């Protein structure tokens, strides 16, 4: 079956609107993706017909809400090919997942003089939690360098792994460069030294098929809103044995089995890490988003986006004065660029006027900007509903930039 992008577009009501009198060309999917009608309907139905608190009520609505929420967890488990739903912890997003691991596993296993290894293309969310941990513990953050194409230098990575290395945390797909990192190989290298690895999948899950057991990662995090789901919901996957041995993070309701003023017994997995009433609607909405993505087929989405990426790379390369930032051999749908003599902010404003929504700025990866000696980039990032015509709209809008700044 061929991928019918026009039919896909019909599933996303937001794409029907105009911006500044022009059809919306939404190319900011790495920031957040739009939501299909089925996800929106699921949220409306949940609040209209099922809203209740979960895991406690004996009444019908509570049972229904609990069932749906746990069904969503099972959908995530199958989507990632995790071994069990016990390994799927609902969190607010990838950022919270990383913080959870840093504050529980990290605090227990990283001590003075130890080292945590990350890459030079990490999002701030995969830098700062480890910096905080290292500062607290007197440990050291080591950074794997990248080359001019935005690819990790595996030799340097190998050299950084040593007896002091206690943890590795790596981005799967770079939000600013689009690079798909060879995380499978990097996990294997770390495991040879007994070092566990967290993979930040915020940008990979929507664009590649991810199999956590094939990768053999110890932890994996992603955010629902980049996967066509609601904001405020995300997932931490962790290997059962690791999660089981970890202390809880936040204390509160739902994460306990019994509480007295003398002693609390913690709940079983994954509830031990889910204190308080969670984002129930968000979890159920994420389940609907996964259904949607499965319906299209992750591989079909990946193939469509790859074709667009190649087209976009060709077309943008023809724009005078344009330089692509991030030219790795293995890339997902991110086109980051700078234009000679025009600051990315000005590009962003002019493109917006043409109906083209992109992101400009440092994309929460200031070290990457420093690495390439630029203050910011303009970034077009692709999703399942983007078309060649939209790439053409982007390049036409870039002509307007040239007109204004001539």
């Amino acid at each position: 079956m061929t991928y019918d992008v026009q039919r896909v577009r019909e599933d996303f009501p937001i794409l029907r609107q105009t911006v500044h009198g022009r059809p919306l060309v939404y190319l900011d999917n790495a920031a957040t993706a739009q939501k299909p009608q089925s996800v929106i309907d699921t949220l409306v139905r949940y609040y209209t017909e099922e809203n209740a608190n979960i895991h406690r009520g004996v009444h019908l609505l509570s049972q229904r809400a609990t069932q749906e929420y746990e069904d969503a967890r099972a959908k995530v488990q199958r989507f990632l090919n995790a071994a069990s739903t016990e390994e799927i912890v609902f969190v607010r997003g990838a950022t919270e997942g990383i913080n959870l691991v840093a504050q529980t596993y990290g605090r227990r296993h990283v001590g003075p003089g130890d080292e945590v290894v990350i890459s030079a293309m990490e999002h701030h969310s995969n830098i700062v939690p480890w910096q905080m941990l290292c500062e607290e513990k007197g440990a050291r953050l080591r950074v794997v360098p990248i080359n001019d194409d935005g690819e990790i230098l595996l030799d340097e990575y190998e050299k950084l792994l040593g007896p002091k290395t206690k943890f590795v945390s790596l981005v799967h797909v770079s939000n600013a460069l689009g690079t798909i990192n060879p995380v499978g190989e990097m996990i294997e290298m770390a495991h040879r030294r007994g070092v566990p690895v967290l993979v930040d999948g915020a940008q990979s899950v929507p664009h590649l098929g991810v199999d956590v057991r094939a990768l053999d990662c110890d932890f994996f995090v992603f955010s629902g809103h980049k996967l066509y789901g609601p904001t405020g919901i995300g997932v931490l996957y962790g290997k059962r044995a690791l999660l089981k041995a970890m202390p809880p993070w936040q204390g509160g309701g739902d994460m306990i089995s019994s509480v007295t003023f003398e002693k609390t017994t913690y709940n079983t997995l994954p509830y031990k890490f889910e204190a308080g009433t969670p984002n129930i609607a968000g979890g159920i909405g994420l389940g609907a988003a996964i259904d949607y993505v499965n319906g299209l087929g992750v591989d079909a989405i990946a193939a469509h986006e790859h074709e667009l990426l190649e087209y976009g790379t060709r077309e943008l390369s023809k724009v005078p004065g344009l330089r692509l930032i991030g030219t790795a051999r293995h890339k997902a749908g991110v086109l980051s660029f700078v234009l000679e003599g025009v600051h990315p902010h000005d590009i962003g404003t002019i493109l917006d006027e043409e109906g083209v929504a992109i992101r400009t700025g440092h994309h929460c990866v200031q070290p990457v900007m420093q690495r390439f000696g630029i203050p910011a980039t303009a970034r077009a990032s692709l999703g399942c509903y983007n078309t060649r015509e939209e790439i053409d709209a982007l390049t036409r809008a870039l002509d307007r930039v040239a007109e204004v700044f001539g």
Partner: protein
Amino acid sequence: MSELRELYQEVILDHNKRPRNFRTLPEADHMAEGHNPLCGDNVTVYLQMDGDVIRDISFQGSGCAISKASASLMTTELKGKTQAEAEVIFQRFHDLVTGGMDDVQEDDETLGKLAVFSGVREYPARVKCASLAWHTLHSALDEGGRTVTTEEGDEAASGA
């Protein structure tokens, strides 16, 4: 496109391309740095005061056309002005770019050439670009220089 032309007026494009007083000032007795952490823009403003009068003023840094032109025009407009006059102009400029001023006369005497920034008010996301150099100047004059960012204080909170 017309609003865009309103934003990117020739004077602004010219000052972006050839910023005036774009240098350090070895004789500076006041200095402050400003950052916009959202986009990585940064500016350093140098002042040489003669009593209450701005004898010389310059800037360095990197940023978009709006922030660069704003800094550049600020230096050309403020040279020779007193501190009190500078603060009045800042207030007028602030009102201009935030839309706090209803009708802006092209020949507004207080604003002078700064009136070319009237288009900014149609672009709320760009107000911070236009005002970064001014906040930095304010800090250099008022507090003897410290780092300011667009993401602190009431000004930033109100979206200025």
